[in-house]
């Protein structure tokens, strides 16, 4: 095999007509294919990361011609300012809720669909996925109507049972729950399909072997299937956090704008608020850089567990 491919390479090399010779040509070609993406990603992602980092050391308001250098002050206030602290705490609450709603819940349902029912798997996939097709603005509008404490259908039905739906926009924690539910409505189908596919990739023979050994289903799932599916599961878990925190931005902006008193805001929304509403560019940049660091940690977790996992299974 190895000999074969070097023969092929030689043949290719010998037929490479009157073009730029050897190594220079080999360096140029891949560049041309990668150039458009590399350029776009560099200009619109890599450089901005650097520039945001640079901005975090200044006080600015996005318009003024001069910036005031303040050193690490913005970073200090990220961790000491009470509003920032509240927002960080909220972010943790968001992450926990998102993990429960967008990871654990779809995972349980995908286990049910894969192992505990026989038919209609495809139909459920098609149906569950539908909300993923809609904008979160639509979702936000829809749910703020459904859950409207005065005139929404949910309140109406609860009234029949003598219960009242509270004005959830007035409470930070309730608003967080509703916003997570809205995101869950959109993302459930997508995560469900990813997890279901991972479960479906468990070889049938292994399940047969376990059945022959007389192993009860829940044990098969716990001892064999879940460990084998770890790669996909961790990928979805990290996706839930990374995507989820960014997704909640939309309902936040549409419904509560982070209120009341930053009660429903999280670190990403607060960054936006600082940048484009309060015009405190420095604080925003510091917050953004800290967020980026957190996401980098998640990236490393993904690489360590997902890529490493896949090498095992080979």
């Amino acid at each position, binding site marked *: 095999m190895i000999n074969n491919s070097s023969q092929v390479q030689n043949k290719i090399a010998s037929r490479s007509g009157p073009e730029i010779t050897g190594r220079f040509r080999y360096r140029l070609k891949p560049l041309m294919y990668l150039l458009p993406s590399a350029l776009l990603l560099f200009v619109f992602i890599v450089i901005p990361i650097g520039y945001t980092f640079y901005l975090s050391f200044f006080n600015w308001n996005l318009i003024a011609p001069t910036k005031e250098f303040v050193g690490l002050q913005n970073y200090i206030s990220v961790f000491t300012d009470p509003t920032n602290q509240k927002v960080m705490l909220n972010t943790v609450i968001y992450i926990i809720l998102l993990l429960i709603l967008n990871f654990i819940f779809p995972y349980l349902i995908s286990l049910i669909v894969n192992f505990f029912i026989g038919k209609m798997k495809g139909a459920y996939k098609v149906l569950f996925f539908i909300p993923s097709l809609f904008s979160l603005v639509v979702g936000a509008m829809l749910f703020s109507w459904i859950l409207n404490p005065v005139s929404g259908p949910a309140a109406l039905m609860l009234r029949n049972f003598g219960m009242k739906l509270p004005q959830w926009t007035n409470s930070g924690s309730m608003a967080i729950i509703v916003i997570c539910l809205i995101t869950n409505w959109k993302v459930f189908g997508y995560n469900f399909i990813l997890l279901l596919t991972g479960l479906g990739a468990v*070889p049938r*023979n292994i399940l047969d*072997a376990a059945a022959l*050994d*007389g192993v009860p289903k829940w044990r098969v799932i716990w001892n064999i299937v879940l460990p084998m599916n770890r790669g996909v599961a961790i990928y979805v878990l990290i996706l839930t956090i990374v995507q989820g925190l960014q997704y909640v931005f939309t309902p936040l902006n549409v419904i509560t704008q982070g209120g009341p008193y930053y009660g429903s805001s999280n670190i990403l929304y607060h960054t936006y608020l600082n940048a484009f509403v309060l015009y405190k560019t420095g604080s925003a940049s510091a917050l953004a850089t800290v967020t980026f660091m957190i996401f980098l940690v998640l990236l490393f977790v993904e690489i360590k567990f997902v890529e490493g996992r896949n090498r095992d299974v080979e």
Partner: protein
Amino acid sequence: METNGFSVELKDVSKSYNKKTNVINEMNLSVRPGEFLVFLGPSGCGKSTTLRMIAGLENPTGGHILINGHDSAAMTSRQRNIAMVFQDYALYPNMTVYQNLEYALRVRKVPKKTRQQRLSTILASLNLSDYKDRYPAQLSGGQKQRVALGRGMAKKSNIFLLDEPLSNIDVQLREKARDQLLQLHAENGQTIIYVTHDQQEAMALGDRIAVINDGKIQMIDTPDNLYRHPTNLFVAQFVGTPQINILPVNFSNHQLTGVDGTVISRPGKNIRANLDEDQSYLLGIRPENVHLHDEQVSGSFPVEVQTIVDYGRYKQLTCKAFGEKFIKAVVNQWPKNATGTACATLDESAMLLFDPNTNQNVLDAQSNYVLE
């Protein structure tokens, strides 16, 4: 307890996936305890499906399967206590060899000490003691197969089902794996049902071989009987390498003639008794029973040697005969490039005759081969 003493019985078992066509058609089978039975057949003939039904992984749509005399339909896996070795071994990838062997026992809550004792004996007998902490990904094909067998031994199963277990092992190592399997069988005496499409493997391993085609058992018998007295054309052609020669012939005037009228042989009384006058048949003769001579011998017919293939152990000659028909002969000696005309005789005691419409062997299996 055991009604007939059979390990596994299939009674009129049928299997269909779409309510229209049957993949398995009213199959009947009785497997004796301690027997090494081989299911042999081409891909898609239903042998793996039958195996899976015995294992309980699928249910028959008709008929009954009895395990040790009891109807298996109501049995749980634990009651069945069958061990199965899959083609890709199906070892749990996230567990070590030891944990793989141990898993079924843990699930049955066998006490730890018993587990350790039983497993160390099994590991030793399979030469796997040094590998007990390795993961399946780190094992060779042969080692994986032994672990798969070990799983069944840990459960103390009496019935082992093997689904083409040697096909993922390198050809050179296959023979060794085969020998190890036979040794295991000799030592422990389990009932083994072994599925393969390789007829040489089947002949080497089985006490009896069930040749399956189109969901039906074509013939079930010892390798020797399969080879010498096949009940139909399919079995004759499926078993034996190189493949048997099949020639259309005519029987009239006490003679068997080829399609161009050449006399092939004047069969003896026992054979004649089974043939009808002026009927066409299919003659089956294995290449090693076709004898070639340089010069005319009594009872021979002319052939033209066209190609010679040297396999080392023997030489295979392809000859033209009776006009457009081809016949293969296998000889030990033949001058190197000697193509051209020659004379052939057929070993009459090895001749098989098949009805061209039913493909059945018309010669009574036993009584024929009293040599004249």
